């Protein structure tokens, strides 16, 4: 057991994967000498060499596209996209190539590429540095999406993503990079594509992931003060989604609030709400409620806290749910 920040846990996870498998390599803008703009890859270039930690030219399509080729050659490249908002130049490579090559080749080619995307807002930055684009990738079959919320998952999911023969995108909660937590480096926590009930409760369920998990926990705490016993699920995997765990919880509690930083409209909350409603229709005491950002471009830093869901908005949704 070690206490690590989320950023250091990812660093340690990457280092361990690189140690254990010489085919693992890192690629991205500024990840080498600088250690990445968030220092997540700090020290890895000097430790593993410039041929395994590539400070690439400045082209996201080039990064992901060459990673596909490297994967076809037997490597396990881990690409860093510097910020969420700069994923889109690589969108074609991710959506039409990386995601589809296994199916295209009738299973003959595997492309075990990992893409790390520091994502989400409330970091007081400028445009394109605070996006939550997970829904834009979840809809595409062939990809897997992970969203660690804590150091333990950050450490293990990095390694599990790399070990997975499918392409995996990891959404790293950048505003939680400095959140400390226990990391058990000995025992692998099992299937990364399963959700985790991180707080038990009987009267309602909150589903959240990544940066909003601490907010969901805080909401459950606050609700307890009002005498409400709220279950919290850290979804962990955004594709596939572990509907079994969520449905079981909702069958028990009868109420569900989903919170994500991305805009509500067209976000993953809709998918979860629709599927859970289908599977637990007769258990629901209230409609599944979603708490997300508004249908607006991410606003300037000065007002971002009004845009991204916070504790109050989650509580307000819980209240609305209880009002049914």
């Amino acid at each position, binding site marked *: 057991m070690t206490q690590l920040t989320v950023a250091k846990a990812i660093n340690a996870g990457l280092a361990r994967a690189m140690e254990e498998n*010489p085919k693992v*390599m890192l690629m991205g803008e500024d990840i080498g000498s600088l250690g990445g703009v968030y220092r997540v890859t700090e020290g890895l270039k000097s430790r593993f060499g410039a*041929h395994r930690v590539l400070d*690439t*030219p400045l*082209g996201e*399509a*080039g990064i*992901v*596209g*060459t*990673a*596909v*080729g*490297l*994967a*076809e*050659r*037997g*490597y396990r*490249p881990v690409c860093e996209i510097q910020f969420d908002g700069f994923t889109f*130049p690589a969108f*074609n*490579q991710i959506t*039409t*190539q990386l995601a*589809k090559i*296994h*199916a*295209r*080749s*009738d*299973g*003959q*080619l*595997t492309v*075990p590429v990992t893409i790390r995307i520091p994502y989400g807002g409330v970091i007081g930055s400028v445009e394109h540095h605070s996006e939550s684009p997970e829904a834009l990738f979840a809809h595409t*079959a*062939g990809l*897997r999406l992970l969203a660690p919320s804590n150091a333990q998952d950050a450490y293990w999911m990095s390694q599990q993503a790399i070990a*997975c*023969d*499918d392409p995996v995108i990891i959404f790293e909660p950048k505003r939680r990079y400095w959140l400390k937590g226990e990391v058990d480096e000995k025992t692998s926590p099992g299937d990364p*594509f399963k959700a985790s009930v991180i707080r038990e409760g009987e009267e309602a369920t909150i589903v959240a992931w990544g940066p909003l998990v601490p907010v969901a926990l805080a909401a459950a705490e606050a609700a307890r003060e009002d005498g409400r016993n709220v279950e919290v699920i850290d979804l962990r995997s955004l*594709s*596939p*989604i*572990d*509907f*079994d765990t969520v449905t079981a919880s909702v069958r028990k509690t009868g109420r569900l609030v989903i919170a994500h930083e991305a805009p509500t409209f067209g976000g993953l909350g809709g998918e979860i709400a629709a599927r859970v409603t289908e599977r637990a229709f007769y258990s629901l005491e209230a409609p599944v409620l979603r708490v997300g950002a508004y249908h607006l471009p991410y606003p300037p830093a000065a007002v971002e806290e009004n845009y991204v869901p916070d504790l109050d908005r989650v509580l307000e949704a819980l209240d609305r749910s209880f009002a049914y």
Partner: protein
Amino acid sequence: MASRTHAGAVPSTLPRHQILDEQGAIADDPLLSPYVADVTVEQLQHLYRSMTAARRVDEEGTSLQRQGQLVLWVPLRGQEAAQVGSVWPTLPTDRIFPSYREHAVAFERGLAPSDLMRLFRGITAGGWDPEEHNLNLYTMVLASQVPHAVGYAMGTALDRKAAQDAGTPPETDPEAVIAYFGDGASTEGEIHESMVFAASYDAPVLFFIQNNQWAISVPFATQSRVPLATRAAGYGFEGLRVDGNDILGVVAATRYALEKIRAGEGPVLIEAETYRMGAHTTADDPTKYRERDEEEQWGHLDPVDRLRAHLRDAHGVEDEFFETVARENDEIAQRMRADVLAMTPPRFEDSFAKAYAEQHSLVDAERAEYLDYQVGFAPQDEMDTHDTRGAGA
């Protein structure tokens, strides 16, 4: 708006290489001629066989499509020299990344014509094992395969370095990679990023452009004011412009490039100037956008005619050879046709096993739902009565 004359154009100073002239006679090319000095008549005959077999299979592809046996066909006629000439000099260890018209490349790598047809029959998006002939799959999104080729090439260099570090004796013929693409695709941003990455990492990759003058209905002049080989200098590597209907010129240019690439000198670009003599695909109608005149002019530059003339005039090859080859090609085409007609569609439920390499809960659930749902529909015929396909299209 996209005028063909540009007041501010800076013309390219790149020479255009040619070894076999329009009449099939040898024209000396100071840089490249030495690279084909050792080509024997038997080898020329092999090249002729490959080019004409591809042409014959191509014709059969069009006819199969017309008969409803393929969903689409992409003719290559006119580009046989560019394709065969660029792949013939490769080693089996070299990895080839085609676009979607490189049928002659594929056959020369050893792929059976019918393997190629699976894609065009609409029963797979692939059709062969990329490892078997070191031949990647066709890629429909223009230019997308090119960064893959660069990455793969970077990987070969990394492997070489690892072997060196481990004290393994160096290979005699280090691997090279070829990325094929067209004049139209050259405009895509991914081509540019590919070139930057290749130059930066000294990737052992040959960018082989078949400039067949057209991107569907759009003439080359819309994509560039100057030959595309000129672009290479902007990335600090060599670009060669070659007569793409001249099999010897293409072979020589490719050998020259592969030699540099294997020597660790990084990427090289070749632009083979050729012509798409047929339609873009079987869904296309070239009369809408280009003149018969132009087609005829290029007809006089036909790569097969040229090699035939050369074999006859310079090597005394007689009619019998050409007739035998034609017969063999017919057989190849007939075999391919028979194989295609015998192909059975896949079962849709097998798709569920292909999307992911590892177990996936949603795919498993949907597969189960699908199978459940299918149980409601036996026999098959009943389904078809509800079919709305073709209602609009």
